[in-house]
């Protein structure tokens, strides 16, 4: 494809060229393009939107549950506040927690998965048994009980809590992959040259797992959004400010669900969350195509 080639001929630093090349390949198929545009739109809206759009959270009792109009394109909430404004301001926390949770769980999975596979013995046994246990416990119930007892405050704690249940699946994949890569010739060559465990794992083996790891990363984000919004809707996370989950929490606790005019107020966060999830899934489908060599060549 010409776009890919054009990107490669640009005189940019090497990592930038690779990322640009990857983006160009993902965008080649409609699914990947939808995913890229969708995720990009949410990132821009949630992180740059609040810098551009002024916050309008003043209570206006005269305009409760208004249907969409020019002044309020998505209507108003139970206190007469603009819904679109809340949607713009309400994405940042959700996206940040999802990204951090995915980052932590992926880091743990890759580190301990490769550690277990390359050291073997007792370390391996313990890590695998732990992963099995984490895969078995019902995550949402554990999260609800833990959140009910310890009230996780701040989004770093919430992200760590979500990540603590998400690493196990990828860890098993990484471990299995490393066990099989260990026997390959180029890895044996690197080991016999005594290039060190760090070099062998991060330079020789990990590049082969880029597909698993990046696709897992995206699925970890969707999982984190699901669990996080679930906890917020149940009122178990004392997060302040506006976010899509808090909007739904108030919709339920204020009985907005049962007002006919509150339709847009409830529909907006539902659509925001669902479209973000769909964009992530589409992006991961696009990535799958990238890593499928048969599609990549064509």
């Amino acid at each position: 494809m010409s776009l890919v080639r054009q990107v490669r001929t640009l005189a940019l630093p090497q990592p930038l060229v690779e990322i640009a090349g990857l983006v160009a390949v993902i965008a080649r198929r409609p699914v990947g393009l939808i995913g890229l545009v969708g995720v990009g739109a949410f990132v821009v809206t949630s992180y740059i939107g609040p810098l551009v759009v002024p916050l309008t959270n003043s209570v206006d009792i005269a305009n409760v549950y208004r249907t969409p109009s020019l002044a309020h394109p998505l209507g108003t909430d139970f206190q007469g506040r603009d819904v679109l404004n809340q949607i713009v301001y309400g994405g940042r926390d959700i996206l940040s927690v999802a990204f951090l949770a995915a980052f932590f769980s992926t880091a743990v999975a890759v580190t301990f998965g490769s550690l277990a596979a390359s050291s073997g013995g007792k370390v391996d046994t313990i890590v695998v048994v732990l992963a099995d246990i984490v895969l078995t416990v019902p995550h949402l119930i554990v999260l609800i009980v833990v959140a009910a007892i310890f009230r996780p405050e701040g989004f770093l704690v919430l992200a760590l809590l979500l990540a603590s249940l998400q690493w196990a699946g990828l860890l098993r994949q990484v471990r299995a992959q490393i066990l099989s890569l260990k026997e390959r010739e180029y890895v044996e060559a690197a080991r016999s040259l005594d290039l060190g465990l760090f070099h062998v794992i991060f330079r020789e083996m990990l590049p082969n797992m880029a597909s698993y790891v990046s696709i897992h990363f995206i699925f970890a984000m969707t999982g984190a959004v699901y669990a996080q919004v679930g906890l917020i809707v149940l009122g178990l996370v004392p997060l302040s400010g506006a976010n899509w989950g808090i909007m739904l929490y108030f919709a339920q606790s204020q009985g907005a669900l049962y007002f006919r005019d509150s339709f847009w107020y409830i529909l907006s966060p539902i659509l925001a969350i669902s479209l973000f999830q769909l964009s992530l899934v589409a992006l991961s489908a696009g990535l799958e195509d990238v890593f499928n060599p048969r599609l990549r060549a064509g």
Partner: protein
Amino acid sequence: MASNAFHVSLLAGAGTQMAALHRHPALRALLKALLTVLAATTITFALVRLLPGNPIDLRIDELTRDGTMTYEDARAQVSGLYAIELDAPLPDQYVSYLWNVARGDLGNSFLSQATPVTSIILAVLPWTLFAVGTGLFLSFAAGIGLGIIAAYRRGSFFDQAVSTVGSIISSVPNYLIAILMVLVLGIQLRIVPITQMRGATSPGIQPGFTPDFVGDVFFHASLPITVFFLTHIGHWILSMRNATLAALEEDYVVAARARGLRDSRIMTAYVGRNAALPLVTQLAISVGFIVGGAVLIEQVFAYQGVGQRLLRAVAQRDYPVMQGILLLTTISVVVANLAADLLYSKLDPRVGHATL
């Protein structure tokens, strides 16, 4: 399952004396199950007893704060509530706690103090099992059928439509689908009498195998069942479609075609059976997550199952009930996993003897 293979290598490498025991697939699965239950019990013990800010310390603190109760009395009361002997050293507490759990004694509820946690859970469990179980099995049956047809008409409009809709529905969080149903069907269009459908049954109806009662049970469970159906069906369609596509390329299918067997027979007896095999194991595993997956859905529809009971316990800070539900859900997943492991070695003759 891939996990079986690496467990064999793992356990064979780990122990030499017990290796013979581990090699038996059923025993190995059982061992894994017991270990997981033990871990879950330990985690709940740690949550309520050991970690800072745990409910036992908080409760003792509350009871002694206004000076009406001595520290010893408060401890005695709390230890009765949790079925934990607080006077004993920690390891003993842990062992006796495990023993109580093993006997099915999960302590008493904080709020209705004479009621054992076990009976509270058993009262709501059937409703969750019924609603989620029905939705799950219906989605499995429909998903298998649609998946086979999609694979046979690969690339057709039907295939693309079913696959796209399936993956879209399964990426939307299930509780959002539930809220959307209340919003659209119940409030905006008023097709569904949403307030009458709250609870597991209508008030005042006589339980029994009468048409009225059974109809009422289905009436109240219909929305939760629909949501569970919708959230699972995408997964079954896509898995079955891919499994069928793989099976269609197998030599025995080509051979069956060459022998001139009817397409319908090839589809059911050759392709369908083999493609559905791994999915049966997945179904067994999903059954285990039934209890855990229902929390938010039951909350949205005010359906009186385990999930709603858990949230009530959370709201009332009724820790013994919370802890009991956490344990029960874990055990149900473990039992389902165990069943899946055993089922798989029964259904697939390649697993079980030759490789182990």
